[in-house]
């Protein structure tokens, strides 16, 4: 099967260091992965093609790159699955990190953010004579998140990082969760308080890109949501993110459905004149078009809202 690979090239030492796309046509076998093909291009067609790889078995996390627009491991992606009808395969370096050359990115920032969440066990109390013990039941739920191979795929495709490079990002937050939820860790709510700061756990936009692209099923965004829940439960200081969540839940409990203007007011705060005022043009235009939602006492609960209230109450009384 003849397959075309459209590869994003970049050489900072060339005379005109601008990225460009170059096409390579290669005969591929059914068993080939994209990594097999890239290595063959480098060995038989163009030795200047630069990529990073090691284990070829989805264990080391070195060959993270974007294939057809999404980050993945090249060694885990079959050519035949993408180009069975002769489609061109697009290969680019990972996003949200600087490119060193061709498909190789600089992951220094990635590691810095991982270090930022203090990814080591911080037990308190006297040191035990043997090892720190935890029951299998208390650790089983962490096996998924411990499967992270630090490939950077989640960071590459994170939509929140695209607009805020200071966001700590999905990989570091999943790593933080791994220690927050470890029964042997003694740092208590101090980790959650640190994660509650700007650019921390509330800066995720919940787009689920990290869940979708992770080659190991870590489910970073689900971990971030659990961190938020734990933060609220342990009473870390409120942010506009946590106020939004709390207000949302209270409105649904009372009315069964969402009172949108009330949610906005309670999230931003009535005294936050500057931000509230900045939305005024939109509110006025919506009013003129007859679509400003009712709010407060004018916003009626759904029929049977008392049943929703009872479900809230009973769900909170955990068995």
């Amino acid at each position: 099967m003849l397959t075309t690979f459209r590869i994003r090239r970049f050489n900072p030492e060339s005379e005109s260091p601008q990225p460009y796309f170059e096409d390579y046509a290669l005969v591929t076998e059914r068993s080939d992965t994209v990594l097999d093909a890239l290595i063959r291009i480098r060995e038989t067609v163009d030795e200047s093609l630069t990529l990073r790889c090691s284990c070829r078995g989805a264990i080391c996390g070195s060959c993270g790159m974007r294939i057809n627009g999404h980050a993945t491991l090249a060694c885990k992606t079959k050519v035949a699955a993408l180009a069975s009808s002769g489609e061109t395969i697009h290969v680019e370096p990972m996003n949200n990190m600087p490119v060193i050359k061709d498909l190789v990115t600089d992951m220094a920032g990635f590691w810095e953010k991982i270090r930022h969440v203090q990814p080591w066990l911080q037990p308190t109390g006297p040191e035990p004579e043997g090892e720190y013990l935890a029951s299998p039941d208390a650790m089983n739920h962490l096996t998924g998140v411990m499967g992270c191979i630090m490939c950077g795929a989640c960071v590459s495709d994170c939509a929140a990082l695209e607009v805020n490079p200071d966001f700590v990002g999905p990989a570091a937050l999943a790593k933080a969760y791994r220690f927050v939820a470890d029964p042997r860790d003694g740092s208590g709510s101090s980790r959650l308080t640190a994660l509650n700061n700007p650019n921390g756990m509330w800066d995720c936009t919940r787009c689920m890109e990290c869940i979708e692209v992770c080659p190991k099923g870590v489910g970073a965004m689900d971990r971030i949501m659990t961190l938020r829940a734990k933060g609220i439960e342990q009473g870390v200081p409120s942010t506009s993110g946590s106020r939004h969540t709390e207000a949302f839940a209270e409105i649904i409990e009372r009315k069964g459905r969402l009172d949108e203007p009330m949610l906005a007011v309670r999230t931003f705060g009535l005294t936050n004149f500057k931000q509230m005022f900045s939305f005024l043009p939109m509110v006025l235009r919506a009013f003129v078009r007859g679509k400003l939602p009712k709010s407060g006492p004018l916003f009626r609960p759904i029929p049977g809202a008392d049943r929703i209230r009872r479900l809230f109450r009973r769900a909170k009384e955990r068995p």
Partner: protein
Amino acid sequence: MKYAFFPGCVSKGGCPELYQSVKQVYPRLGIDLEEMTTASCTGAGVLQEKDLRLGDVLNAHTLAIAEQQGLPIMTICSTCQGVMSQANHRLATDPGYLDDINRVLAEEGLTYHGTTTVKHFVWILLEDVGEQKIRQSVKRPLTGLRAAPFYGCYLQRPSAALGFDEQPARAKSLETVMALLGAEVVDFLGKSRCCGMPLLTINEPGSLKMIAHHTSDAKEHGADVMVTPCPLCHLNLDGLQTKAARRERREIDLPILHLPQLLGLAMGLEPRALGLNRNLVSTKSVLETLRVA
């Protein structure tokens, strides 16, 4: 083809033109709807930030009502669809968890057996209504209209919970429908990205940057209009587009249509009946392209 209709909070709140337009188009497709008036909000992924199990209780309540009626659920919101699909996936794949949730429902005399299917309108169009009936309903083909799709995260990810393995055509459902209506589909990378809505509360400049980026990108790829099956995306892309354009110092003016509005135009319905006058970014240019008075 009868469904329990779950309109969602936003079609009854900030985007009434969505509710209005879907009411206009569904009878013309042989669809019968019974609106779910006692179902609560899905939690929209926000309630789930505080308590995932509580969210699953509320959605199991909705799913159980439809199960009692013997009807599949129709949604018109990517977020409602995604949140309910995920809840249904968890309940269907973990019998112990389903039992736990049913213990909460039991005191209301309800049990959920895990049999309700939940489908977004755009999936229903392709899987239940079918290409032939859609083509037959078109009275004013959207010839010459270059339309960019914008799905909303929850209709794209996580693909396992959305049934993409069993129904791979769902991944491109919006584009397929738009092409059937005669529009020229403008493909661009942002179509399956985040609109920025959930970021608005914590990082408004970032959210506005996403709006400006996606709408400008679609325009640069030649789009006259953007079409979305998600009213939350619409709130951001339409409602805050002017603010985003001002902040990013760009001119955008890209009309954002709800999918049933586009469908209604192709059916030859009156723009006002579809609530096109209620979109915040003017839809006049779309009507001019289609030569609708």
